[in-house]
Structures are given as structure tokens and as C-alpha cells.
């Protein structure tokens, strides 16, 4: 589905079902050098089980036009505008990695318009090493290899997003290359990493958000280690929210290395 958001084309995958504003809506937000397709299994399932899904390509990424967001705050503005453009009064927000920070910031602004907040593979602060930041700018292919190696927890992933026979590592590499090539004006790799690295409103945003929060963490995640999520977990608990933490025995590719477990923990949380 294509919408016009902030004056530009915004693409949202709807899970193989037409958008139906009458159903509860879940917005899925991808991370750096990703797009909507990282959520395919989870979104397709939810779309066929009573939810409305909007898995977005962030501005300046793949099928979406517009200026690639340079900050988490700018991306959160986009999410707010997206809901308005789609006519969605209330939605659950699900974000992975950088997308988790965007979902968090958007939830703090949208207040009661957000029913559930799901942070997959999150950390705060989400600092990116200077070497990786520099590589993402000047040697993006080297940096892409590095982050995919860090993201992987197994050489034998179960059947995944493209089905049996998918080499998850290779698929992630190819997607990263494609997303990077999709924007000829801006290096979305470096811009996304900088946005993660510079985001400073995480604790305040968590306190401001009003909805229940689910953390989906990878026990072997080297990109966003589970311990790096504890500040946000603490802030969520301290501010009196209902908080659930799910630890999955995988790395940073939660959606592809353990697609069913990721789906079910999100689905069950959305049902509450």
C-alpha cells in the first residue's frame, strides 16, 4: 500500500490483506539497512489473524521516497504522520534495532494513540563504535559484513522468511546492499547509525509512554546485547508500566533466526 506522508510516497506492506481501518493496527518499523521485508512472516501471519499491519519502508529506503531520517526524532515524526495519513486513531508499534528507538520515541509523543510498544533487539544508549560509524561511511561493504557477522548466532537457522533453503546471513547481506543502493543521495547506513548513536531521549521517552511494553531480546545478540536494554527495562518498570521481557536463544536476526518464537511472543502480547 502506498500513502503520501510528509509530502512523499510511503510504502507499507500490509501482509497480503487489504488495509482495513476497522481492525486493530500494528505498525512495524525496521532497523538500519533493512526494509519492510524483514517482518514478512510475522506481518503476514498477523494480517491473516485479525490485525491490520503496516510494515513500512522508512523514508528514503527502498520503496519509500522522501528524506531519510537523520534522527530518531525525525523518524518518530514520520510515524506520527503515517498514522494520520492512514487514518489510524490507535496502533501498536513494533520496532527492531533502530526501529525500536523510533517506536519508543513515537510512543512517547503519541501517548494514548499507542496501544502496545514492542522493542525487538533494542538497547539504550544505542552507541555505535567510532570505527563502525566510520566504516559505514567510507567502507560500507566492510561495515555491512561486520554487522551481519555480529548479528548472526547460528550457521543453521531454521526455515525462515523465504522458507526452507534460505541462507539468512546471505539474505541479510543482500538486503543491506539493496537498501544502501536504493538511496543515491544519502548513505542511509551511516545516517541510520548516526541516528542510533546520537539518540539521547530514551529514558525520558520510556517514562512518557503510556502503554504496556514488550522487550524481545536475543540472548546471543552482539549488536544490541541484552544487558544494554536494561536501562529501558528499568525505566519502563519504574514508571509503572506493564512490562514483559522475552529472551530468545538467538542473535540480532530475531525475526529470521527464530521466526515463530518472535511471532508468538508479539502476538500474545498484542492480545493482552
Amino acid at each position, binding site marked *: 500500500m502506498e500513502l503520501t506522508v510528509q509530502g512523499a510516497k510511503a510504502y507499507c*506492506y500490509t501482509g*497480503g490483506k487489504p488495509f482495513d481501518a476497522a481492525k486493530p493496527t500494528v505498525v512495524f518499523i525496521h532497523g538500519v539497512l533493512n*526494509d*519492510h*521485508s524483514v517482518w*514478512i*512472516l510475522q506481518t*503476514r*501471519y498477523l494480517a*491473516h489473524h485479525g490485525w491490520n499491519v503496516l510494515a513500512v519502508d522508512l523514508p528514503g529506503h*527502498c520503496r519509500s521516497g522522501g528524506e531519510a531520517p537523520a534522527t530518531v526524532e525525525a523518524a518518530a515524526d514520520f510515524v506520527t504522520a503515517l498514522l494520520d495519513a492512514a487514518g489510524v486513531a490507535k496502533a501498536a508499534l513494533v520496532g527492531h534495532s533502530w526501529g525500536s528507538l523510533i517506536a519508543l520515541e513515537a510512543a512517547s509523543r503519541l501517548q494514548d494513540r499507542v496501544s502496545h510498544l514492542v522493542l525487538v533487539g533494542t538497547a539504550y544508549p544505542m552507541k555505535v563504535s567510532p570505527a563502525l560509524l566510520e566504516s559505514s561511511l567510507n567502507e560500507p561493504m566492510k561495515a555491512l*559484513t561486520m554487522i551481519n*557477522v555480529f548479528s*548472526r*548466532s*547460528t*550457521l*543453521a*537457522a*531454521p*526455515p*525462515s*522468511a*523465504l*522458507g*526452507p*533453503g*534460505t*541462507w539468512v*546471513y*546471505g*539474505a541479510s*547481506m*543482500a*538486503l543491506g*546492499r*539493496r*537498501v544502501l543502493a536504493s538511496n543515491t543521495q544519502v548513505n542511509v547506513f551511516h545516517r541510520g547509525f548516526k541516528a542510533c548513536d546520537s539518540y539521547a531521549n530514551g529514558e525520558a521517552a520510556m517514562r512518557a509512554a503510556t502503554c504496556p511494553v514488550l522487550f524481545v531480546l536475543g540472548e*546471543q545478540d*552482539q549488536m544490541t546485547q541484552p544487558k544494554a536494554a536494561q536501562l529501558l527495562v528499568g525505566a519502563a518498570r519504574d514508571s509503572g508500566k506493564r512490562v514483559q521481557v522475552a529472551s530468545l536463544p538467538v*542473535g540480532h536476526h530475531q525475526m529470521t533466526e527464530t*521466526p*515463530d518464537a518472535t*511471532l508468538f511472543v508479539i502476538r500474545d502480547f498484542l492480545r493482552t
Partner: protein
Amino acid sequence: MPGYSDPGFDTLALHAGAAPDPATGARAVPIHLTTSFVFESSDHAAALFNLERPGHVYSRISNPTNAVLEQRVAALEGGIGSIATASGQAALHLSVATLMGAGSHIVASTALYGGSQNLLHYTMRRFGIDTTFVKPGDIDGWRAAIRPTTKLLFGETVGNPGLDVLDIPTVSAIAHEAGVPLLVDSTLTSPYLMKPLELGADLVYHSATKFLSGHGTVIGGIVVDGGSFDWEGPRTQGRFAELTAPYDGFHNMVFSEESTVGAFLLRARREGLRDFGACLSPHSAWLILQGIETLPLRMERHMRNTAKVVEFLASHPFVSRVGHPMLESHTSYALAQKLLPKGAGSVFSFDMKGNREQGKAFIETLKVFSHLANVGDCRSLVIHPASTTHFRMSDEALVAGGITQGTIRLSIGLEDADDLIDDLKRALKAAEKTTAKAGA
């Protein structure tokens, strides 16, 4: 343990796609000889059929043993995934049938395996798919042959049997400029010698019967998607509606929307395996996996033996030509140095001086080399292409493919190199004596 570093080729050849079986602890890959897989519930069944959840339904579409093979070959090739098929020919057909229908056009190298040439020149033409053949080194020819209906460029990494090395970086650039993918048959080089996806190819397939399995025990094929080709890119001009428009035959799915990088694999499995049905037996998949575990070791030995045999033949007075790119006399020498630094394969041809009777005497004298229609076995093999693998081709097509009536094709195995050279020496002597008798 893998996962904390970036594993190399040899490690991937042993571990990619496989972990100890969670149910039994079995370390080797189990052979899942079952047609079907029990659903947990009606909802699970529906979700599997609708691609909402991952898993196996029916072994024609996917199977856990085959999935290990598919992940492993994709890992070795640097692809995003792959599909195992009943044979290499099935992999080629699946690739073609996924991308096009009647009215489409292919540009292919003249230096192809006879079966591939047959499929494109005769069989696919009957289904309305036309092919223009160009010499692999004729770069202008590749460009000139492309039409608005062209959906694929296709060649072999090293052409069978002349070993013309395909200039993949150049040909892929021509393909991409025209908005067309490049498919490469990498059977004779295997990912050990060359990774075509890294050089610019978009799709790669193998007859896994050959070096991947390596023991002459199994027929199988596999096609790997590099995930690099943008089926909706501006240069494609809507050529690939099979992947970019809703497909009535599968839930109106738009494959390119469903997966940004994996549209080809999605359609190939969900339509091609489902409807054409050229799936691989899990037992065959297991045999190929057994072979792949020693692929690096075998390929190294194949190349070492080949170097010795080529050297011997090149200096033999009864041999008029040795067609291996390791020799400076070969037209692909420079390209092979650049694209195939570990070697240009162990399947090559040579021409003997003399007539057809001498060729017959040569082949029938060999004892270590087996006379049969295969290559890439651990055992050394020999055949006369003009009367066997390429017998349907016209004289003109044979010449275009670098084959003469006197051409002998060898596949160098893993025996002691001295034994191979001794066998060839005796056979060449027998051939020479045959001439002497005929002249007496």
C-alpha cells in the same frame, strides 16, 4: 563455535545449514525420508500453506535434509538461498520457467553442455522461448543479441568442453545495462574455484551430480539466487511480471513485494517445484552433502592432478592440442589467470593426431580412466564428445563449441597422478600403433 567469527569456505562446507539434530543429538545430517510433515493444528496448516509461518509441508516443495543442502550451497556461493532439484537440467529448466513464458528470449553462450544446448535450441523453442547463441568471448555479440523480449543471459563459467572462460564481469555488466539477469552454470568450477555471484552473476546453478557430490553416485542439481538483481529496477521496463505482479496461482502474491531480495526463489519454489515437480530426493541430497563436506580437499587434488596431466599431454608428440586455460596457448589463458586463480577445472579436452580409429583405440586401451558420460567424479573419466554428449549438434555448432571429430574429453580424478599419466601414455602408444598397422 560458528557465530562468533566469519567462517571460511572449509568451515562452511562442513557446517553451513546443519546443527546437531535437536531431537536425537545426531551429529551428521539426518535423512528425512518422508513425503509429508504433520501439522500442529488446522491453523498451523493454513499458515504454512499461506507462507505466514516457516516450515515443511510436502517433500516436493521442501524437506529438512534438502534444506541443509540448500543453505550450504548458498553459503558457499555467497547467495541468499537455493533450491535443490532432481538434476542440473532441472535446475536450468526451473530457472528459465520461473522467469519467462512463450514469447520470451534468451541469449546464451555457444559453449554449453550438450544437454543445455539441446534444451534451449530445441525443447524450449517448442514452448515459444527462443534463444540466440553467441560465442562466449564475443562481447559485442552478447550486446547485439539482446532484444526487448530478452529475459536472461546464460553461459557456463568454463564452457564444456573447450573451457572458454566466461568473462562474467563484462557479460553481467552488459546484462544489467539491459535490465536482464545473468545465469551461470558453475558445474565445472564449483564454488571452490569461482564464485560467480561475486563477479556479477545473478543466478548460479550446478549439476550437483558432478563436483559437489563428487563420487559419481547421485543425480541432482541446485540453483542459487544471489539476491542482487532488482526485478523492478528502472532498466527492466516491466519485463518480469512473473515476479512483480500479483500471481493468481498463489494467493495473488507479489513476490517482489513479499521479499525485496528473494522474489525469484519464492516463485521458483512455490510455482516451479509445486507444478513441474522436479524435486530432489532427500537421500540424494544427503549424498551430495557428504560430497560437499570434502569439496575443498577434493578440488585441491583435482587441480594438482590436472596440472600434471596437462603438462604431460602438452609435451606428447602424438597430441596436437591441449585445451586447458592453464596453458598460454589457450584463448582464455589471461581471463583464467584473472577469474580462476585456483585453476580452471579438471575437465578439459585434447586433440590427438590421427583418425577416428585411433581415437577408438586410445579410449579402449585406457584402464584407469573410465569411458562414460559424466564428469567431476573422484575417478578419472574419458569420453569422445562428437559421438556422445554433443552428437545432436551440427558440424557448424560443434566447431562453434570448440569440438572436432578428434576431440577427447578427460575428467581428471583423484588417483595417483603417475598412474593417470602411465595410463594415458599406454593408450597414446596404442593409438599410434593402430596408425602403423593401418599403414602397413
